[in-house]
């Protein structure tokens, strides 16, 4: 518990208070929660809203390795996972590990990659292992993929199918900063990269893994399980929804609620934790009826609506 408080405190001091990352506190907390829940995050946002900086800064502070892949339509699965190549010096095939062998992998514009490459990546995300030339390689823990996608671009992209979207624990919608925030960003534009490069790890990889274990021990009252079940069921009953949340969504919700409780210094989950993570967990798992979508109904509004209807545990 002390360790996570230290991590959160450092994130606040080093990144937020020093204005290395402006207005990114919620995103940082959500990514940390997803990491502690052994999940992956999908960041949706237009280019230039500090998605890469956020991931890089977090991995630096947590003492974790960080790699980035820019997805393109001609990218092959082997470009991500790696391949064997003949080395004349050794007179045999040697393994060239792909960028997936890291702790935090930033996959930029995931929807630009071909479905084949996407599938290979998503499989690795789920199994936390890759197979190269029939040989199995376990990925180092913690392993987290932070994928980004641009919600505007529709041409030359391969949108992720619902089943694959479901594999992301959370979806974070990153928007533009406020005017004041933008002024701060401009003032520190020359220093941001330096500041991120200069960040020193505050915890070790082992300590992060210890915290991952601790999150599992966060207590959850039965009434919280019922509350989550009611929320998930209500997503299926909602009049604006064509496809509601799956049981995997319910599991994701409880995992995230536990991690959220933990990073807020509690070893028990309260209904507020569930509410806090409901949107990031559920929004990419719900499909609206097209006719209502055209009318301006959004998934965010549906989730809000559900949260203002489902009764919280009592007494």
């Amino acid at each position: 518990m002390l360790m996570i408080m230290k991590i959160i405190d450092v994130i606040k001091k080093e990144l937020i208070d020093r204005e290395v990352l402006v207005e990114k506190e919620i995103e940082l907390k959500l990514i940390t929660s997803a990491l502690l829940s052994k999940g992956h995050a999908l960041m949706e946002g237009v280019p230039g809203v500090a998605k890469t900086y956020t991931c890089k800064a977090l991995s630096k502070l947590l003492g974790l390795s960080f790699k980035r892949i820019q997805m393109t339509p001609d990218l092959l699965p082997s470009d991500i996972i790696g391949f064997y190549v003949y080395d004349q010096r050794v007179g045999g095939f040697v393994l060239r590990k792909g960028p997936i062998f890291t702790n935090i992998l930033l996959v930029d514009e995931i929807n630009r990659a071909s479905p084949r490459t996407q599938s290979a990546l998503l499989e690795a995300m789920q199994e936390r292992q890759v197979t190269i030339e029939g040989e199995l390689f376990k990925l180092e823990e913690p392993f987290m993929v932070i994928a980004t996608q641009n919600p505007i671009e529709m041409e030359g992209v391969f949108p992720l199918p619902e089943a694959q979207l479901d594999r992301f624990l959370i979806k974070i919608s990153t928007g533009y900063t406020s005017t004041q925030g933008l002024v701060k960003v401009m003032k520190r534009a020359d220093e941001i990269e330096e500041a991120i490069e200069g960040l020193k790890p505050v915890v070790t990889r082992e300590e992060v893994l210890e915290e991952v274990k601790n999150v599992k021990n966060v207590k959850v009252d039965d009434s919280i399980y019922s509350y989550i079940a009611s929320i998930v069921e209500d997503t299926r009953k909602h009049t604006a929804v064509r496809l509601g949340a799956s049981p995997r969504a319910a599991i994701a919700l409880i995992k995230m609620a536990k991690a959220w409780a933990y990073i807020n210094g509690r070893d028990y989950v309260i209904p507020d934790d569930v509410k806090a993570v409901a949107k990031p967990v559920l929004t990419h798992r719900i499909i609206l009826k097209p006719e209502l979508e055209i009318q301006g109904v959004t998934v965010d509004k549906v989730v809000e609506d559900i949260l203002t209807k489902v009764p919280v545990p009592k007494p």
Partner: protein
Amino acid sequence: MKHRSLYLATLILFVFLNSIAIIVSGEEDRHTPGFPQVVEGASIPLSTPINISDIEKAISELYNRSLLNRKNAEKLKNFGNLSFKEAVSRIDNTDVRNNLLNLYNKNELTPEDIETFLNYLDTLKVSGTLNPIDELLALKALETLSNIIQSPYTSEIILRMFSAIKDLEITKKSISISEKFTPNQQISIEKPSLRFPSPSLSLIQLPTLPRLKLSLPNIPQEVFISIGITTSIAIALLISRKYLKLAFDRLKINLAVKKTIQQISDTFLEAYWRSVHLVSSITGLSRNNWETHREFLEKVFSKLDPRVAEVFKDITFAYEEYRYGFRLSSGQKILEGSKKLMSYAKIYK
């Protein structure tokens, strides 16, 4: 300052309301032309029905008072029993006589014919070509015709007979007065009314025509009393509003303190929910069932006195630890906080 203007406004309102009530009660006719009006006594207010014998009595009275000369008296002799032809034969005015005979000879006599003839008589009267004796006789002849066809104008004809008698009386009186006085003397001569004579015959009580009372119904005194009482109560409530609210709040708090929360067997949880109920009573903000304990705290925090708010905050976090964190020690904190909240709420609110 705010209260002073409030009292002033109330006073003005009170004076205004009372002025309206006084004005309303003072007005006899509040009818606006063109709008429906309340008409009292639309039916003929005759205590005893008048008939032709009353007319005969009036004629004989005129004769006794020497307001009718012998010649005219002869003409009106046996007035009540005159037949149509007898009445017509006694009329001096040839036109009237001819018109009556035409009417008599008409195949199908209708009430409209009677009405037309009455209007014809009015025209003659206004032009001064019809004397009251001829008018009386014409009306008698018309009355016999009206009776034959059972016209609704019979009673009006009899009323017109009275009017004619009145005209006769006034004419005679004015002649006798003008004979007594010198030409230099000023005298106001009452002009004869065409239809509605004022009753001046001593023996005969002429029927009064229905008076149109053009006013709203009288407002009973009880209404004014009720208005007065209501206004006084309203003023008293306005003045004492602040104190009443305080008293009401105290009552609510006391009730909330005494209220037991049903269906909660756990004493500590019951203490929390009682605190929620109390805070709801104080702030007037109820807790929705979808609101978490923290959301409710956030909602009411700014509405409470800082000391009470802090106590409720402690209770909320203790509840959270006890309820979801399974820390039994926090139960005692809820109880203590709840007691503190009850006592604080009574003082600070």
